[in-house]
C-alpha cells in the first residue's frame, strides 16, 4: 500500500494483469481467459470485440466485479479487487459501475421509474431523493413521459434507454455495456448508440462489448479478444476512426480522458467511497 502521506499518481480506472478465468467442466478445465493485460483510463471509450465464445463476456464480468479472475490481478481504481469481500464488490458495483445488458434486464411489475431508482435503494438513498434522481436520469435519456409505464409497455429502444438511465442514476465512473444494441432494430440501435456516445463525451468511461461495427468504429480503442487472449485489433483492411471520424490507430496509447471528466461526476464512486484514502484494503 502506498504511503498515504504521499499523493500517488492517479492510477488507471481499470487495470488487468495476467487475468485468467478457468471453469471446471467435469474432469477437464476450460480456460475462458488465458492471460490478459490491459488498462482503461477514466473517460475512455473502449470497445471489446471478438467472436462468440472468445471470452469477451467473461472479461466483462470480471471488469464488472461480478466474477473474479482465477489468477492474475484486477485493480479497480488502483485497488486490488482480490482483497475485497463480496459485500465490498457489491458496493463498488453499486457506486462505481453501471451495467447495460443486451436484454435490458428490467424488472417487470415495477415502473420505469422504480427500475431506474433500484440501484439507489441499495445505496441507501432516501425515497424522495431517489425519485428526483431517477426522474433526472429518465429525463437525460428522454423518457420523462414514460416514467410510470411498466417495461412491458415500452418498445425495445425505450427499454434500453430505461436501462441506461438505471446505469446512470448512481453517477458511476464507468458504464459496462454488453451488446447494448444486440436486441434492437436499426433505428433504436442508432438512438441508443448516439446516447451512449453523448454520455461518453460528457466524461463517462464507456466499455462496450459489441458486434456492432459502428460502435467499434466510434470507440477510441478496440480490444479484440480471441480464444481468451487479446490480439492486435488492427487487422489488415480495418480502419478505426476516432471520435471525430478521423482515422485512428487503436493500438496506440489510450487517449487522454476529456478534461473535467471527474468534475462532471463529483459524486462518482471513487471519491464517495474514499478509495484514495487507502482504507479499503
Amino acid at each position: 500500500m502506498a504511503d498515504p502521506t504521499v499523493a500517488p499518481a492517479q492510477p488507471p480506472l481499470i487495470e488487468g494483469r495476467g487475468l485468467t478465468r478457468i471453469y471446471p467442466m467435469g474432469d477437464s478445465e476450460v480456460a475462458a481467459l488465458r492471460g490478459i493485460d490491459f488498462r482503461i483510463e477514466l473517460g475512455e471509450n473502449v470497445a471489446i470485440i471478438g467472436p462468440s465464445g472468445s471470452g469477451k463476456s467473461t472479461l466483462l464480468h470480471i471488469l464488472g466485479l461480478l466474477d473474479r479472475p482465477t489468477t492474475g490481478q484486477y485493480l479497480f481504481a488502483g485497488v486490488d479487487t482480490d482483497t475485497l469481500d463480496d459485500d465490498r464488490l457489491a458496493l463498488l458495483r453499486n457506486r462505481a459501475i453501471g451495467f447495460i445488458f443486451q436484454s435490458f434486464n428490467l424488472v417487470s411489475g415495477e415502473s420505469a421509474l422504480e427500475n431506474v431508482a433500484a440501484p439507489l435503494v441499495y445505496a441507501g438513498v432516501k425515497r424522495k431523493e431517489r425519485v428526483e434522481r431517477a426522474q433526472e436520469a429518465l429525463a437525460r435519456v428522454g423518457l420523462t413521459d414514460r416514467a410510470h409505464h411498466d417495461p412491458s409497455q415500452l418498445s425495445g429502444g425505450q427499454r434500453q434507454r430505461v436501462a441506461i438511465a438505471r446505469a446512470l442514476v448512481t453517477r458511476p465512473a464507468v458504464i459496462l455495456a454488453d451488446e447494448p444494441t444486440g436486441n434492437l432494430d436499426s433505428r433504436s440501435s442508432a438512438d441508443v448508440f448516439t446516447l451512449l456516445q453523448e454520455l461518453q463525451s460528457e466524461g463517462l468511461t464507456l466499455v462496450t462489448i459489441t458486434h456492432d461495427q459502428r460502435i467499434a468504429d466510434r470507440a477510441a480503442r478496440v480490444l479484440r479478444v480471441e480464444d481468451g487472449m487479446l490480439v492486435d485489433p488492427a487487422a489488415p483492411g480495418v480502419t478505426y476512426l476516432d471520435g471525430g471520424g478521423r482515422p485512428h490507430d487503436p493500438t496506440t496509447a489510450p487517449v487522454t480522458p476529456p478534461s473535467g471528466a471527474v468534475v462532471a461526476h463529483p459524486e462518482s464512486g471513487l471519491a464517495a467511497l474514499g478509495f484514495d484514502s487507502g482504507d479499503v484494503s
Partner: protein
Amino acid sequence: MTYLEALRLALRRLRTNLLRTALTTLGVIIGVASLVALIGVGEGTQAAITSQIAGLGTNLLSVNAGAATVGGLRGAAGSASTLTIADAGAIGQLDGVEAVAPEMSVSNVVVVNGRSNTTTSMTGTTPAEAKVRNYQVQTGTFLTDLDVEKGLRVAVLGPTTVTSLNTTPTAIIGQTVTISGIPFTVIGVTQPKGGSGFTNPDDAVFAPITAVQSRFTGASSLRTIGVSLTDPDQLAYVESEITALLRYRHQLATSASDDFSMVSQDQLLSVASTTTATIRNFLIGIAAIALVVGGIGIANTMLVSVRERVREIGTRKAIGARRRDISRQFLVEAVIVTLGGAVVGVLIGVAITGPVGATVGVPATPTLFGITLAFCSALLVGVLAGWWPARQASRLDPVEALRHE
C-alpha cells in the same frame, strides 16, 4: 436495503401476482382460522364442563358403591351393591355433614307424555337431593318428605326432558306421564343448569326413592349417596369419618379394602380440567398441522418464485444488491404473505368460532390466547418458509443468474 424498502418491494411484487398470492395465503388462512376457532372451542368446552361440574353441587362429596382401585379408577358404578338407605341415614348423623341424599338410579327409562316419549335415566331420591346436587325448580315443587314417606308416584323432570317431550314446563305440571309404563304425576320442573353429553343434569327424572324402590328396583341398595358439607375445609375430616363409619357398618375386616369409594367435587374438577386440556391440546395440534401445511405451501411458492426470478436476482446483484439485500427481499415477501394470511385467518377464525362451537354444542368464543398463538405461529411459519428460498436466492452466482434464460 432497509426492511422498509424490502416491504415496499414485496408489496409491489405481491400486488402484481394477486391470484398466486391469494392461493398461497389460503393455506395460512385456513391454518390460522382453525387455530383460533379450535382454541376457542377447546376453551369453551373447558369452561362449560367446569361450570357444569360446579353446577352439580357445592361442597359435594359423592359416596359410590364399589371399591376404588389403585390409580383412582373405579369399577362400573353400582357394580357392587353395598350402600343402603340406612347407610345414608347414618352418614347424615355425622359431624360436618349438612345434608345427605341417597340416590337409587334406574337407567334407560322411557317417559311417555301423550304421543311424545324420551329415554332418560331416573333417580330415586329424597328432598335433600335438591340441596346436595344444587337443583332449583322453575315451576312446581321438588320432592317433599311426604312424597317419600308415602311412596307417591310423583316426578320432577329436568328441563331438557320436558323439551324432549314436546311440551313446556308450565304445561306439564299436573300431567300424568308414564315412566316405563308406570304412571307418575309431574309435580315440578328443575331450572336448567346447562350442559350436554352423557351426564346432562337437565335430562333427568327425580322420583321418591320409596316409589322407585317398590316399582323398579325392588332392592334397597344405592348407587351413590350425595353428601354436602357444612364447611368445604372439613372435606378430609368428613371423608375419614365416612370411611370409618361405613367400614364399621359393613363389618369389613381390617385387612379388607373399602367396598365403597368417594369422589369430591374438587377431584372431579381436576380430572375434568385435565381431560378438557387434553382435548384442547389435541385440537390445537390439528390446527397446527393445517398451519404447517400452509407454511409448506408458502415455502414452495417462494422456491418457484426464486426460480422464476433468477435473472432479476442477477440484475439486482449487478446493480449493487448484497446477499443480505436479496435474502431480505425474499424473506420479507414470505413473512408478508404469511402475516396477511394470519390477519385474514384471525378475522375468519373469530367469525366462525361461535358457529363451530354451536355445531358441537359448546358455547365457544375466540380467545386472546388463541389469536396471539395463531399470529405468533404464523410469523414463525413465515420466517421458516421464507428462510430457505431466501438463502437460495442470495447465494446465486451473479454471472450464472444473468445468463439464465
